């Protein structure tokens, strides 16, 4: 039983020749992402801004009634807790309620301020319990509250996590390859991270802790893809001593094309299942991952290798880590 071929056995697409078009596309994507992020800002979730999210299931489902969102909105906004937002979450009788951070008058410090936030949550619970008292009991499926101090810390932690993993990955690539490879792969990685953030600025989807995790994961995946192409370039550099570099790069990318698409394919299949069936709670996270993997695949083919060519990589430079060859013979 022989397997199918995702791409023809021997492709010879001119990726390097297309590099200026790819650069143009990427520059537009990156500039657009930065522009959008600056202009629209990101829709930070409560992980970073502080605030409260309450997910409830109304007791109306038994009578197949749908909660009146407008009425609930008026009710909750009457509590003087700032702009309370209510939206459907997955099902018509499943609601997501967001409370803004409550203002503190500065007296009593953090603990007193946290107290005020808790009181706001209790107010909302009481109002909801009353509103649905006739229909039955409200199911509080989820309550998430993040105080302002904790939010600021989580933001800092998230940024540190991104920074450290970038440094860690860069250090690894640096150690395994020559510096040009490190620079090119980090450019590709930043490209993917920035464009993913741009997607969040464009769609105004909630940007929270799990988004940071997704971006790190995308960084890991992107570097992984890039390293695999680079590995082949390095191998071919040793094998074909006379071949002009653009041709050699093209050959390498083409040789790895089938693998790149296969692995992206299986990963995307798994993620697709997660997106469709994994439930509302992680949908944002999976969405970011799917987008990032598509972008990461694009960048390892169209961005990383061409940039490596443009870093002025010379032949005959000592190639690091040659010993990896005969490890498992």
């Amino acid at each position, binding site marked *: *039983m*022989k*397997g*199918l071929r995702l791409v023809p*056995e021997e492709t010879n697409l001119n990726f390097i020749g297309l590099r200026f078009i790819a650069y143009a596309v990427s520059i537009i994507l990156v500039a657009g992402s930065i522009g959008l992020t600056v202009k629209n800002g990101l829709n930070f979730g409560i992980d970073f801004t502080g605030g409260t999210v309450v*997910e409830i*299931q109304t007791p109306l489902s038994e009578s197949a009634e749908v909660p009146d969102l407008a009425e609930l909105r008026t009710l909750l906004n009457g509590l003087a807790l700032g702009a309370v937002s209510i939206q459907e979450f997955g099902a018509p009788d499943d609601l997501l309620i967001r409370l803004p951070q409550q203002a503190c008058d500065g007296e009593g*410090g*953090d*603990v007193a301020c*946290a*107290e005020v936030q*808790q009181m706001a949550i209790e107010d909302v*619970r009481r109002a909801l319990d009353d509103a649905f008292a006739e229909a039955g009991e409200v*199911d509080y*499926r*989820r309550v*998430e*509250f993040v105080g302002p101090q*904790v939010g600021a810390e*989580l933001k800092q*932690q998230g940024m*540190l*996590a991104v920074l*450290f993993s970038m440094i*860690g990955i860069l250090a*690894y*690539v640096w150690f395994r390859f020559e510096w040009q490879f490190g620079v090119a792969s980090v450019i590709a990685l930043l490209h993917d991270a920035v464009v993913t953030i741009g997607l969040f600025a464009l769609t105004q989807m909630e940007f929270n*802790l*799990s988004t940071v*995790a997704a971006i790190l*994961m995308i*960084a*890991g*995946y992107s570097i*992984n893809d890039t*390293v*695999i192409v680079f*590995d082949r370039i390095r191998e071919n550099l040793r094998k074909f001593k006379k071949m002009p570099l653009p041709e050699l790069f093209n050959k390498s990318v083409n040789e*790895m094309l089938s693998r790149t698409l*296969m*692995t992206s394919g*299986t990963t995307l*299949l*798994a*993620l697709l*299942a*997660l997106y*469709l069936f*994994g*439930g509302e*709670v*992680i949908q944002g*996270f999976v969405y970011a*991952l799917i987008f990032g993997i598509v972008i990461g695949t694009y960048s390892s083919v169209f961005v990383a290798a061409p940039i490596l060519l443009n870093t002025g990589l010379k032949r005959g430079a000592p190639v690091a*880590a040659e010993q990896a*060859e*005969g490890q*498992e*013979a």
Partner: protein
Amino acid sequence: MINIAPWKIVLTLLVCAFGFLYAMPNVVGVGVRGWMQENLPGWAPSKTVNLGLDLRGGAHLLYEVEVGVVLKERADSMLQDVRKSLREDKIGYKRIGVIPGGVRVTLLGKGDGEAARRILRKSNPYLAIETDATGLIIEAVLDETGRREIYDQAMGQSIEIVRRRIDELGTTEPIIQRSGEDRILIQAPGADANSLKAIIGTTAKLNFHLVKDPGASGASRSYGFAEDTTRKIEVERRALITGEMLENAAPAFQDGQPVISFRLDNTGARRFCDVTRKNVGKPFAIVLDNEVLSAPVIREAICGGQGQISGGFTVQEANDLALLLRAGALPAPMAVVEERTVGPSLGADSVEAGKKASLIGLALVLVFMALMYGGFGLMANVALTVNVALIFAILSGLQATLTLPGIAGIVLTIGMAVDANVLIFERIREELRAGRSPISAIDAGYSRAMSTIVDSNLTTLIAAVILFSLGTGPVKGFAVTLGIGIITSFFTAIMVTRLLVVTWLKKSRPTGALPV
């Protein structure tokens, strides 16, 4: 390549067997699991994956303790000590007062500086003492060690009290630990956050004070009544009885009203007896967390060490308060600064969704691999299945916590785990195209793809490790399964498929096309 050392074969098979055995408790029914737990020796697999709060439902509460209150108390008592010593030693001072974290003394004469500093030093060994240019103003503030000591003490005590309170509630396996300098993390699976918060958030500092005679001298304090805070009462500053003197407290009824009956320890009983005997006919106030519960008049000396507190409680309030008094007071107020509570219904839904998504994801990848790589694809699929079993075996064995993002990590690993095999198979195809014989193509495929596989796995592992060390809650759960998945997939993709491929090679000795 064609010959795998026998010990490697044994090891590979053992690991696979271990994987399936330890993953098994997760798929068999509860009944079988119970049987296994009872009838198999302790080392035998019987544990299931430990579900996180987001999957089983429960409360995650991060409290911040206002340790500043304790610091202030400490500074207050230091002030009393120092003032007393200054008076005893006849050192003249113009002013003495509390400043943040310490006291400030303004002396009358320069000559007393040394003596005053000695008194300060004696009151607390961990003071940073500074004298201004005039030599008259001396500031003594707790230094880093002193501060840390107070923090550690207050936090340790708070955690102990919180633990006692939660234990009284009967919550199963709660995690209560210090987090950072002044926070306490509480994770209580299956607990209702609201009742938890009601119990934890109350300081429960109980004091009995004599009500101050109008016109009498001495330090006093004014408290409002719990029922009506605008009604104030002036009491003597010094507490007659404190909560620490309580030996027991229980809810009870008096004239059909819920009350709390308490018993004092020996010191408390003696003092209560003494004071009540001297003050018959006068009122005293029962103060809880700076609010007066009631202010009964002493009718006769109370000497048995027993008494009752009334305060217009509901039955629930009386129960809760009795519990709090038994467990003791918190050294300082604290409040929730982060809460993540998941109800049981959402948890169950998430488990279902996670299961469904993982199974469908796995099925899709299996089919895709079989289509793309034929017979070799099937071998990779065996490895992938072993991989999933290994992930669950390790999660169960280590009793690591599986969260919803953790499930996402597993699904992602399923998609990425085949990468190593994809690399190898693609390489084999290339080598075949280059004209190598099947066996040498397979050999080259494995050995040449190796460095690439190591590189690609290590970069992802770096990201996972950093996520784990810097992440909190949900992110951590993702990093755990991702990290475990990378390690297991490295093993299964290399060792398991190789064993299968080699076994197949030896049996069929292919000369023509390979099923790849």
